[in-house]
Structure formats: structure tokens, C-alpha cells
């Protein structure tokens, strides 16, 4: 029926369709985006309130930034899989789409969503949390880019797992935290280096770890996804 369709082209089309579906659906309902924005604003407000005008050391503030980002991710990145299960539309995807395309499309969606929530959190944090100033921007940018990618990667595969379980909400952070801890520790360390004004070369070790983490997690996820997805 439709000629001149290489398998790669078909796969790309399918991946794009999964991404665009989630994207368009989100634009129409705006549910996840508004929940995430409110979450970030609320959490930063609570932190400001708790600090009570007093400062905290740059080390503590570096860690707290990623606490906010982690929990924001936990509140928003599971939706892409959980919604399909809850609405019963997962079967349509299983019926029509190659599993690898489903995973790739949803990973892409979470990468975009994750980047958005990271940028929002960082911007609000820099503006409102006065004790936190970045001295080495190159390290900081590297940290938030790689951190956000790694966060999205790990969160997506765990989201796929919990979507098939019962108590999805509380299970998500429980499963995600041990997996994400290496990423969080590394990225907090890099953020501290950026806040302390260290030269870029000091953070190379951290970046190496972050990049290998991303590669390992994505590779493992791709290999294991079909076991999770197929009944």
C-alpha cells in the first residue's frame, strides 16, 4: 500500500507519532505542565519560608536545588506511561507500535518535560534563593544539561515499570531513588564546584560519570523495555 518505506523511516515515524501524541495531548489538557509549574513554585516558596531570611551555605543550597528537581520529576515524569494504563489506551500502542518506538517516543517526551522543569526550577532558584550564586557557569550548564538528561532517562524506564503495578504514586519515588542516587550525588557535587568558582577542569570527573551513567541507563532500558511492555 505505501511503498518506499524503509524500516528506519517507519520506526522514526512511529517514534515521532508517540511523541507528538503525548505532546499534543498535553497541550490540550495542560494537566502535567500546570501541575509541575505549581509544584516547583510551591516547593521553592516553602524553602524560602523555611530559610526564613537566613542564609544557608552554598553546599546546602546546591543539594537543595536537586532535591526540588528530583521531586518535581517524581511528580510529573511518570504520567506518560501511567496515563496510558489508566485510560486503557496502552493496548492501542501495543497493538500498532513497535515497543522500541514507544519507549523512544516517551523518552523523548520526558526529556523535553524534564528539561522544562529543570530550567524553570533553576531560573526560579537563581532569582529567589539569594545565598546561591553560580561562579563557574560552564560547569553549571553542563551539570544541569547532563543531570536533566540522566534524570529523564532513569525516570522513564521506572515509570514504565510502575505503570504496570498497583500503588503507582508512592512506588515511583521508592523505585527511582536508589537508581538515581549516583546521578544526584554527582550532579550535586558538580553544582557545588560551580558555586565555589572552581575551574572547568575540576569537574571533568563528574561529567565523565554523568555521561557514562546516561549511556548505561539508556542502553539497559532499551534492552529491557520489551519485557516490561509486553504481557
Amino acid at each position, binding site marked *: 500500500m505505501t511503498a518506499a518505506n524503509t524500516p528506519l523511516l517507519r520506526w522514526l*515515524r512511529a517514534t515521532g507519532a*508517540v511523541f507528538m501524541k503525548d505532546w499534543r495531548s498535553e497541550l490540550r489538557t495542560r494537566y502535567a505542565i500546570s501541575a509541575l509549574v505549581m509544584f516547583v513554585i510551591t516547593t521553592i516558596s516553602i524553602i524560602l519560608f523555611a530559610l526564613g531570611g537566613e542564609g544557608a551555605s552554598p553546599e546546602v543550597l546546591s543539594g537543595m536545588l536537586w532535591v526540588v528537581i528530583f521531586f518535581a520529576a517524581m511528580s510529573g515524569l511518570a504520567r506518560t506511561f501511567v496515563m496510558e494504563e489508566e485510560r486503557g489506551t496502552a493496548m492501542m500502542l501495543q*497493538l500498532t507500535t513497535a515497543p522500541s518506538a514507544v519507549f523512544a517516543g516517551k523518552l523523548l517526551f520526558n526529556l523535553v518535560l524534564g528539561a522544562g522543569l529543570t530550567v524553570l526550577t533553576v531560573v526560579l532558584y537563581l532569582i529567589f534563593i539569594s545565598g546561591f550564586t553560580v561562579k563557574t557557569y560552564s560547569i553549571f550548564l553542563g551539570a544541569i544539561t547532563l543531570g536533566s538528561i540522566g534524570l529523564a532517562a532513569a525516570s522513564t524506564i521506572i515509570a514504565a515499570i510502575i505503570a504496570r503495578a498497583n500503588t503507582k504514586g508512592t512506588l515511583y519515588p521508592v523505585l527511582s531513588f536508589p537508581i538515581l542516587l549516583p546521578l544526584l550525588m554527582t550532579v550535586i557535587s558538580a553544582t557545588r564546584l560551580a558555586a565555589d568558582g572552581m575551574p572547568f577542569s575540576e569537574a571533568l570527573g563528574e561529567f565523565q560519570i554523568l555521561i557514562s551513567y546516561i549511556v548505561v541507563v539508556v542502553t539497559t532500558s532499551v534492552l529491557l523495555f520489551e519485557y516490561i511492555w509486553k504481557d
Partner: protein
Amino acid sequence: MEIRISARGLRMAFNRRTVFQGIDFSVGNGETLLVAGRNGSGKSTLVKILCGLLTPTGGKVEMTGEKPLDAHAWRGHIGLVAPYLQVYDEFSAIENLRLTMALRGLLSDDGAHRSLLERLALDVRRSDPVRGFSSGMKQRLKYALALSHQPSVLVLDEPMANLDSDGTMIVRSIMEEQRRRGILVVATNDLSDVSAVQTRVDLDDRR
């Protein structure tokens, strides 16, 4: 391509309870397979296995052209209409059609989509969100989604669910056409739903 679906010793169990076992059948082009049985006998389970949605606990089922088809090719040849297959109701009818084609990796042709929707008496409402559709309209939309890629195998679980007499007539002509073009699989309680059955699987005595 001439397609044949065959099953040998098919068995399905959940949590150590056997739903059915010892299922054998073979059905080829131009033939109809009827899956019959009371409610709860496992008709939908067998349907899901045929569509590649479930892995059987035991036995074998395969779809062959010149040689056995892999999961990907299998998916490409099947169209399913079932009560448990949900559509994306925040999108419109034509958006759903474009979506399912793209999910299969295929290019969309809006002209073809519109004629398909017209045949199913949905063209007028093609741009309205499916959320506002009646149950009969949703059922007809499911037929459109199942047929848009012209599948060799059309699988219908409760084919006449939610349909009025007009809808029923449309579906009967679809079933006729599918019989001529490829394989038709029908799972139902109501035997008047389907005529001219070549192969019949009765799930009532297969526990």
C-alpha cells in the same frame, strides 16, 4: 500475500489457573474463524493472543506468509475491534486515524481516511473530539481505525456491540469484504453475528 494463522496446543493460565488448553486450529485466506464460548470462557484472551498482545503460557501460535512472521510483521497485518481497545478521546476522529497510521509507521492519506469515515457514517463528525461521541459512534470509529491500513486479518471481539441496525448493516458488509480479501476472526456469544464459518473454536470445554 497469502496469510495463514495456525495454533497448536495453545494454553493460557493466569496465577496458576488455566483459562483454556489444547487449542488447535488453522485458518487461511478467504476463511472465517469463529471463537465461541460463554462469558468468561477466555474468548477475549484468545483474541489477545491472536493479536500479539499476550504471550501464551504454552503451545504455539504463528502467522505465516511464505515463512513465519515476526512480531513486527504480525502487527502490520492485524486490525482489531474490541470493547477493551480504547481510543484517544481528546482527539478527533480524523486525528485518531492519522495517529494510528503514524504509530504503524505508515503515511497518511486524508482522502482515504475521509472515504473510510464516510463509509462508517462518521465523516460529518470527523473533526469533533471523540469524547463527545455516542457509544455507537465510538464503535464505528474503532472499525475505521482497524481498517485504515487494510489488514490481511480482521479480528472482531463482540462485533455488533453498541450498534444500531444501520451500524450492523455496515459491519456485515465489512465482514463480507474482509472474507474476500483475507482472514476474518470473530469472537462472540451471539452466533447470528456471523455466517459462513469455516473454522470454529469452542472454548467452553477447554478448561
